[in-house]
């Protein structure tokens, strides 16, 4: 009935689609890394264009809605949050691309170590993104709070990965290149989790108008 509802639906679909593409990208990039299937990376890097397109579409739609529909209250909070969610999800995709790019190089060398913590990071980060976007679209405050809690797990995993990699470097300085690359991969997962947290915070703002205290900067 209300025109703005159509536009909001359009936004929701775009956000959901972008999220699912980004998650696919993470999974493909990770799969390429963990199973050493470099052919997957190309796909990820190419898909990024699609994400950029949707990103643009979302921003345009937001401008359009604001210009034409003059959203208020809950609608307004949602629409403005979409701008930020869009930035966050776009960063998630960027990080997936980063993983793929590092992966390309990593896979050129023998596997440095069995991947144990990194897949864990992947699992949690991916789930966080998925849940965060869901709870953003559903304005689910409780779920959002749960997601924000999880960020710490990923942070801790990263520290663990860094420690482990350092031992490898100390062991054999030739490992350094691969180790550093894996370090950046870990960082990418951590950033992805961070962006998921951002989206979860936006979910809370959209639902309640309450700005969740900025997370403190982590080590």
């Amino acid at each position, binding site marked *: 009935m209300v025109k703005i509802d159509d536009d909001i639906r359009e936004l929701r679909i775009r956000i959901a689609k972008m999220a699912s593409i980004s998650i696919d990208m993470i999974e493909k990039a990770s799969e390429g890394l963990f199973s050493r299937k470099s052919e997957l990376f190309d796909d990820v890097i190419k898909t990024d264009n699609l994400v950029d397109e949707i990103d643009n579409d979302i921003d345009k739609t937001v401008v359009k809605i604001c210009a*034409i529909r003059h959203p208020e209250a809950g609608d307004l909070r949602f629409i403005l949050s979409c701008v930020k969610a869009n930035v966050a999800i776009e960063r998630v995709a960027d990080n997936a691309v980063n993983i793929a790019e590092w992966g390309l190089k990593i896979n050129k060398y023998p596997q440095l170590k069995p991947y144990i913590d990194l897949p864990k990071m992947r699992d949690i980060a991916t789930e966080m993104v998925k849940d965060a976007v869901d709870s953003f679209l559903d304005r689910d405050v409780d779920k959002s709070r749960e997601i924000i809690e999880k960020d710490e797990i990923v942070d801790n995993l990263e520290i663990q990965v860094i420690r482990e990699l350092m031992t490898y470097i100390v062991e054999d300085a030739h490992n350094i290149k691969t180790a550093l690359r894996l370090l950046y991969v870990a960082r990418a997962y951590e950033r992805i989790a961070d962006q998921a947290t951002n989206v979860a915070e936006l979910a809370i703002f959209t639902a309640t108008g309450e700005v969740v205290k900025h997370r403190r900067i982590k080590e």
Partner: protein
Amino acid sequence: MNQVLLSVKDLNFFYGETQILHNIDLDIYKNRTTALIGPSGCGKTTFLRCFNRMHDLYRNNRYEGEILYKGENILKVKDLIELRSKIGMVFQRPTPFPMSIFDNVAYGLKLKGVKDKKKIRERVEKALVGAALWDEVKDKLYSPALDLSGGQQQRMVIARALAVEPDIILFDEPTSALDPIATSKIEELLSNLKKITTILIVTHNMQQAARVSDFTAFIYKGHLIEFEETEKLFTNPKEELTERYITGRFG
């Protein structure tokens, strides 16, 4: 994809000695809604009324230039009766004729000489359905149109215009005499109407123009300043003047 239905070329209009419209060039696209916006007195209504030669009802009005429509210049057409049955018009205030709802909607058909009762009935129903009024009036088609509420009257007037299957309908601030709820109904109707016809609408309310139209023309002091897709015009107008107008920095 956007097919030109009417093409305004270098249109000038004069009330007596005073020139109101200056060198307007504009295309009206088929099955699209085109909105005319601009400050009060800029000539929107005057422009709109060129399309069905309403100005001919009064003396001392003069057109120059052309409005091309199916290869003919509207401004030179001799048979206004024929022309006006192709180009419908809806006014600011609802204008139900003092007859039954049915007779109102059938009026244009009768003028056209349609005699076949069954055909008239069909067309009336179709028009009322098209104007999203059928359900509300189907049980009282023969009661006076004046008994309808303002919003219903306006939709009936739209049905009346639709009944003769015009190529284009001109709207002159069709909601400015209505309350907000009736207004939003008409706006919804407008967005659906373009499936079956072409719409040219004058509105005072910029937001309304933004909501209902595909193209928007900004007129200022009788000049066409900018003509653009609505979305473009409202998010990124080319002209400084347009920008100032739509951001409320005028006057």
